[in-house]
């Protein structure tokens, strides 16, 4: 691989923070990361390195950022305060921004009913447990409208509005 082909400013697009530059590849983030047990493993340290080097291609095609369990252990342990979890989210965002297939289906569901799953519809069960009716947004159409209207004003949703509008 030749560095001349890599984009030296990529890190600024993805995770424009001095925190990233602090990284000295000590591997602390790796050793305790749950998702690093995955197949393929999530290798936070390597991702950080790829961002610094500006290896656009490889980064774009890398699925591992999405395997993160968001436990933020790396964040706690990183001796250089690189905030790796923040970086992972940043990579995900950059990927979605540059590749619509990365757009998580979850946000469509949330757009549609306010949650990733239907909430409060299990009325019978709740009754049997002596629970009250739950005022979820799903049950407040005009509220939900407002919510959707709001989301439409945000970049990824508006960019990919077709995913949301078609019935």
């Amino acid at each position, binding site marked *: *691989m030749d560095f001349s082909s890599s984009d030296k400013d990529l890190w600024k697009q993805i995770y424009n923070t001095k925190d990233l530059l602090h990284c*000295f590849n*000590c591997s602390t983030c790796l*050793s305790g990361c749950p998702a690093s047990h995955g197949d393929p493993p999530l290798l936070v340290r390597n991702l950080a390195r790829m961002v610094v080097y500006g290896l656009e291609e490889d980064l774009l095609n890398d699925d591992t950022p999405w395997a993160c369990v968001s436990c933020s252990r790396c964040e706690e342990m990183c*001796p250089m305060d690189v905030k790796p979890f923040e970086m992972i989210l940043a990579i995900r965002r950059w990927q979605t921004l540059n590749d619509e297939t990365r757009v998580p289906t979850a946000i469509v569901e949330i757009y549609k009913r306010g949650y990733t799953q239907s909430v409060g519809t299990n009325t019978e069960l709740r009754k049997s447990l002596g629970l009250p009716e739950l005022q979820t947004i799903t049950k407040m159409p005009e509220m939900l409208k407002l919510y959707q209207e709001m989301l439409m004003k945000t970049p990824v949703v508006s960019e990919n509005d077709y995913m949301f509008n078609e019935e």
Partner: protein
Amino acid sequence: MAEKKPTGTVLVAGAGVSGIKAAIELAEIGYKVLLTDASPQIGGILAKLDNQFPTDHCGMCRMLPLVGREYASQYCMRKGLYHENIEILPFTELKSVEGDAGNYTIELLQKARYIDTDKCNGLGECIKVCPVEVGDEFNHGLTKRKAVYKPVPHNTPQMLLIDMAACTKCGECVKVCPTNVINLEAEDELSTRQVHAIILASGVKLYNLEEFEDAKSWAVSPDVVSSLAFERIISGSGTFDGTIKRPSDGKAAKKIAWIQCMGSRNRRQKRDYCSSICCMFALKEAVLAKEKGGDDVETTIFYMDMRTFGKDFYQYYEKAVDEHGVKLIRCRVQGVMLNPDKSLSMRYFDSETQEFFVVDYDMVVLSTGQVPYETHKKLADLLHVAINAQGLLPTDPYEKVKLIKPGMFLCGSLMGLTDLSEAISSGIAAAGQVSRFLSGIDVTLLEEEEIPEPTAKDRDEPLISIVLCKCSEKAKESSVDFNALGAGLKKLNSVGEVNIIDMVCSDEGKQTVLDLLSKSKCNRLLIGACHPFMYRKSLKNLAKKAGFSASLFEIIDLSSIVHKGFFESETKDQTRLAYNEIRAVIENLKLKPALHVETLPINPAALVVGGGIAGMHAAFSLAQRGVKVHLVEKSDTLGGYAGTKIEHTIDGLTPISMAKDLTIKVLEHKHITLYKNCEVVATQGSLGAFETKIRDLAKEENFYLNHGAAIIATGGHEGVTAEYEYGNSDQILTQAELKDGLTTGEIDVGEAETIVMIQCVGSRQKDGREYCSRICCIGAIANALTIKEKNPEARVFILYRDVMTYGFAEQYYTQARLAGIIFVSYSLENKPKVELKDGSPVITFTEPVLNSEMQLSPDYLILSTGVDAEASNRDVGKAFSLPVNGDGFFVEADSKWRPVEFLKVGLYVAGVAHSPMTLKDAILQAEAAAHKTYAYLSGRKIHTAHVISKVHHAICVKCQRCVDICPYGARSYDEVLDRIIVDGATCQACGMCGVACQNNAAEIMGFSDKQIMAVIDARLYRDPVATTAQ
């Protein structure tokens, strides 16, 4: 009459090695020293370490003075320090400092020990009965101690104390104390003292597992220990008699892992520095673990950069890895998990295979570093100074040991983070600064008590006077019948008289003895008392006053007969044991020759070879103290490499202008004579009287200089290389060339897109410079930062093996990364490859994180070629017959304990001639070397020791085996005289010559065959207890 000037008095606060060293150095030249330590004992951390690399053993005794050594302690430093000019105040804190330069009033708070250690016999009856048990901090809680305890279990004499925090005041100890010296109501004592100068040597706090958050993910088992605790575990005097067992269950530990950078190099925990010492520490412990635990012990070190930057460190590192098979893994691990079987599981990522591994260990050792700052803040307030930007005490920019406040100095870890040899040099340097300072104010030195040697009576038939102190009779174990003993001895041939008195050590006691002896007819004297090494000198003087030749005088340690385990026998008949012991000494004393110390003729002039900054600094430091200096420089300009080539350094120093100022000082000083274009050809003589032949290269003629001592400061220069296509392209430069180009502007990086630097070019490898040049990483970073300043868009890659930004230099490494400089590590086995594509360099290397081949086509390729020794070192070495190592640097007497000395007394080394080092370190060494020199040229009398080797010319056949075998080069064959000559100052009476010489033409006076064989006889007079079984 004019009032007497006060004796120069110095406070040394902190009795770790650096403090002790400073104290000894000052005491030796005749200043009074108060040596305090906040802890109940002296010795600092070193008291806990039985082993230091590179020898893996102690050798602490090597820091004792060499000339007139009987008067300094002849004993292992672990037993304590005895010097008449040093007042040791353990368990004492510096409370306040008032007044100004040369006249300080200090308050000392001596904490209560609750035990009068002067009277305590140190046998610890009290300990036996004390009901309270707490963790013993000396063994890091691995063992238990009582509320009344011995702070350092293996010290003699023992300095017991009571830990009031734990004490229940049950009073049991008071009841059993045979010497009743326990006072549970004792109180701390605040005292006020006047001192003229202050040396701070209180060291820094050590990172500990209890206190710091990031250690908590490791605190899962007692088998996870700090590196210092591990020292105690492997220590012979430690927790498991030196065998390696894991604390949890005492099982032998076969798999041990070391975790580097615990508490260091951690921005998140606000500790963005490197502790410098831990890497070597871990290597050493890993090697020891194998040596003590056997080859089946597996040792692994988890590290980021192996910072083996010091002299001979790299060879040690190679040895550890190649010979001892210490495993190194470059990975920082989050924590450790405890397995049901008590083993410790660690998961790490291996970049080469890009795989995770989970390994179980029996023990995990955390390389816990030093924690500065806290200590510094407190001290700064005490001294009414402000801590500097780095959070350290504000010192002179160039002189690390010199506080900005006049009359105040510091040494040891307080300066930053130091290893052993630097601690020692700094101790000497601080002492030097003090003596420079005190020579400028109105104080005097302690008068050496000069008692004329009485005329020797050894030609007369030996007649021995014996004085026995029966104070030990009081000890509970004692069953010595002094009357019987005395009577028995009296019967012995050549025993003139036996006197038994009480408390010889007390002043009345001494007086009694003096009166007795003045009347005595005897010509030899034997005194039996306790712990003789504590007051050998005072008793010796007493003997002299009474007309006994100091060399015809012996002291025997009676207490040991009463107390020491190894004299015990079934019969418990101490009277007989004492009788036999004393009889052996008598046999020896009978045959002792009368010895005389010679006063060496000292020419109070020094020769300094090399006019670099180190050389000039040393010269000036000496001249300031009135010593005449010959400064010899082989070029026609002063300043050396740093002083002529380096405009400014990353830490804001400006060597060139500094050198200019220093040059003026040197040229103007009336005591310094400069010889430019001159080099040393040959030298002869010994301490006090060297004669050196100098060659004037310009005039092409020789002349001679006479001097009492010499300092070698020949320096070094940037290394050269043919590697990486150097010389074949104008885009390939050395760091120095780049630095020049950048300052002069000849090199314009404004347009540059990519610049690559390669570290360790030709360094740290068997077939090259087998050492780390120490300054290249920081140098490279400095250059890289300059490039980034000039052109932030430029991409700078630094290909390194280990980033050697040790200590606070770590901040520059961080700073560099922040500036976007990219660091990529490579291994010796897999160096980057450079080839020229139409004149321009193309670099191929393996990127270790992603483990993939990478390529760069930079505008510039910069090579860090390290530091080379001056080629002339070999000739200078020959001229002074001083050893030069394979890399062309001078070999000091002892890498840890005598860093600036040579084995031959009177010759010293400073600066890069010793090994590559930073400017500040070179100046530090120069100061130290200057002081060692001054100590002999200061004008005070220098005596040879009593016990040195002599030649019986009448029977000497000049086979010169003694010359070859003498480790100090103290013996030589003088062809003109056709004789073997002994340099009395250099001779250390090790006795090698005596053994090598088959007919005793070479003999250690006072250790003659006759004496020793007589002792053997005495030892083997039949002992009724031992009888052959039938």
